[in-house]
């Protein structure tokens, strides 16, 4: 092994996870290199110091708390699912009502002054014409249809008496 231990060799060596050949090569190097040997010993000591920092105790009720949170979430999702369906249903009904209002022609008003009720047939026809205007189909054709128009009367030229 040239030089010193490589960075990526140090921790696996401390963990005893190097392949056998590499492990033996590192040990041969350590036997000959005081600098690397000291570093390895210091790091081993450090790992022992870090052991002093223990984790926190877990409360016995932890699994039950997790279960409760999951159940609460499942129930909440269920409720929100029902709410969504209810909301969608209400929206559909509202849309249907709106559609009926738009499409349905205005119903005659049930009450009103007699003047409004008694309409002459002419007035009714005019109103109907406004509501349902007559559509002129093939208007272009009809516009040029000569028979619809009375041709202007031809003026006869005044009789001329030929003088001698």
């Amino acid at each position, binding site marked *: 092994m040239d030089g010193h231990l490589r960075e*990526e060799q140090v921790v696996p060596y401390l963990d005893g996870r190097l392949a056998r050949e590499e492990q033996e090569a590192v040990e041969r190097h350590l036997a000959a290199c005081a600098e690397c040997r000291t570093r390895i010993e*210091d790091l081993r*000591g450090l790992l022992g*110091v*870090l052991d002093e920092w223990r*984790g*926190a105790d*877990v409360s016995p009720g*932890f699994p039950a708390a997790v279960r409760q949170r999951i159940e609460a*979430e499942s129930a909440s999702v269920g409720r929100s699912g029902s709410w969504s369906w209810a909301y969608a249903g209400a929206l559909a009904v509202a849309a249907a009502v709106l559609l009926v209002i738009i499409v349905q022609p205005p119903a005659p008003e049930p009450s009103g002054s007699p003047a409004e009720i008694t309409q002459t047939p002419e007035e009714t026809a005019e109103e109907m014409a406004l509501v349902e205007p007559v559509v002129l189909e093939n208007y272009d054709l009809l516009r040029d249809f000569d028979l619809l128009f009375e041709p202007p009367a031809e003026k006869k030229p005044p009789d001329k008496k030929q003088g001698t």
Partner: protein
Amino acid sequence: MAAESDEQQMLRVKAGDADALTPLVERYRTPLVHFLYRMVHDAATAEELAQEVFLRVYRARSSYKPRAKFSTWLFKIATNVALNSLRDGRLRRAREVPAGSDAAGNPKRNEAAGEEHERLADVADARPTMEQYLMERERLAVIRQAVEELPEKQRLAVLLHKYQELDYREIADILDCSESALKSLLFRAYEALRIRLKPFVANREA
């Protein structure tokens, strides 16, 4: 009949068997709370975050694919939960109470975590003197501070390697790096700690 693997149990959760999560909670609650505690330095918060991690596991059950070990997936979620919690600043503000901070707002070195105080107090009767208790307290606070001051990725690597004992492949997956890069990262982290904790290391060797 062979016991079901973590991955098989998680696949049962995915298939709709919510009870299959219980053995996973039992198996991982301690390592998970320990990991989160070392990240956030508060036992109650660590438990709350651990619950959140399991809740996220449950929420993500339909998308679970056993491509990696279950523990890798779990600790990746835990890492994200812990980092998000730290980054939102609430925990940091709670820890940096004025009484424990210097003029610049930095926590004092002798401000040990409250939970560590309590645990030491529990066993203080077994210790010969109050002086020794205070020395132990100070010592733990310095160790904790040294780890906390590591760059984020180095800190996570140390916690997952030293305390959770995950293998290199798992840690590399969690930290999104190669195994070779992880080994170098760990070396640099332990080197930094060796320098910061030199007096403790020297005393231990003496």
